[in-house]
């Protein structure tokens, strides 16, 4: 199922997903760079560098979360398979829920890839001492929840628009 979802969404929107992942990485990377530079810029050059404060991770992570909240509904809308004419599945035993579920799975696969884009930036922040392993659990859980839930409005809007278009 996941492989089939990936084949569909990458075939149609591979470049878009790569673009969103790159934009996510660029945003998170530039925020992290700005914050770390602001912290270390005030340290005298003669002094040894202190670990980057946790705020650097928090600010970066919040920026990444906001990006995902914006991008995921777009991916949700894109994951709804486009059809021409009346709904071809109208008389199938599988209902609208099955179609929405398939679209959701595709959107989650795509959003997960976009979410994983800036992983190297977070690894560097961890190496600089900005956050501990304990923080990883809840921050990853929140991003996973965003990846799972945020595409839903996009899917609902796209399905409603397609069903409206058939009349």
């Amino acid at each position: 199922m996941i492989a089939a979802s990936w084949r569909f969404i990458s075939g149609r929107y591979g470049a878009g997903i790569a673009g969103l992942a790159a934009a996510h990485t660029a945003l998170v990377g530039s925020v992290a760079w700005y914050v770390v530079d602001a912290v270390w810029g005030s340290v005298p050059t003669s002094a040894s560098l202190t670990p980057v404060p946790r705020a650097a991770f928090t600010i970066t992570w919040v920026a990444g979360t906001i990006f995902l909240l914006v991008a995921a509904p777009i991916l949700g809308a894109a994951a709804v398979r486009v059809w021409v004419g009346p709904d071809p599945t109208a008389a199938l035993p599988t209902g609208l829920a099955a179609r929405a579920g398939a679209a959701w799975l595709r959107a989650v696969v795509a959003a997960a890839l976009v979410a994983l884009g800036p992983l190297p930036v977070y690894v560097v922040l961890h190496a600089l001492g900005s956050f501990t392993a304990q923080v990883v659990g809840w921050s990853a859980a929140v991003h996973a929840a965003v990846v799972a839930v945020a595409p839903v409005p996009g899917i609902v809007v796209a399905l409603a628009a397609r069903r409206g278009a058939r009349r």
Partner: protein
Amino acid sequence: MIRLESVGCRIGGTWALQGASLHVRAGELVGLTGPNGGGKSLLLAICATLVRADAGEVVIADHDARTRPRRVRGAIGHVPESVGFYPDMTLRQDLEFFAAAHGIARAAIPGVVDDVLRRLDLGGLPGLRMEWASRGLLRRMALARALLHRPPVLLLDDPGSGLDAEARGALWRELGRHVDGGGCALVASHDTAELARHAHRVTLLSRGRIESPSVAA
């Protein structure tokens, strides 16, 4: 297999279908004809559970269309008047998708699709994308989708429109094979002469009422 008792349906406050009763038994091919707007497509849409009747009883393959629409959908093959399609799929992918949606086992799908492609003379076109399919080809694809899962009941809305003589021949040949195998079919068409040639009975539907109850063809 198809039992309609005093079926009525209101569209926009007026009765578009009223008091329609029709029985189609196993092994029967029944034609439905009449003028535009007479209610043929609406009657088929009600049988296919796409529209809910406001009055009467609709029973398809022993399932009540109102209370068991999913069971009914599993038992029918429906060719609508206008065929919707996924433009990015090839003909083969389209049929594989619909076969999977009907619950055909994954291992059996290639064989089932090959069989339907061959029976409807679509064997040379499986790689063609649906967006490039002609109107006639779309109708043949709709029939192929309807036959995939070997449903006992076929509901066909103007299936011959846009088809050349050869494709029409294949259509009626398949319908004949279907009813000979114990299935039944309800076919709506404007072409009364063609219906009379192939159907066991023809019913006239006009202004939402069955005018002539199932005249033997």
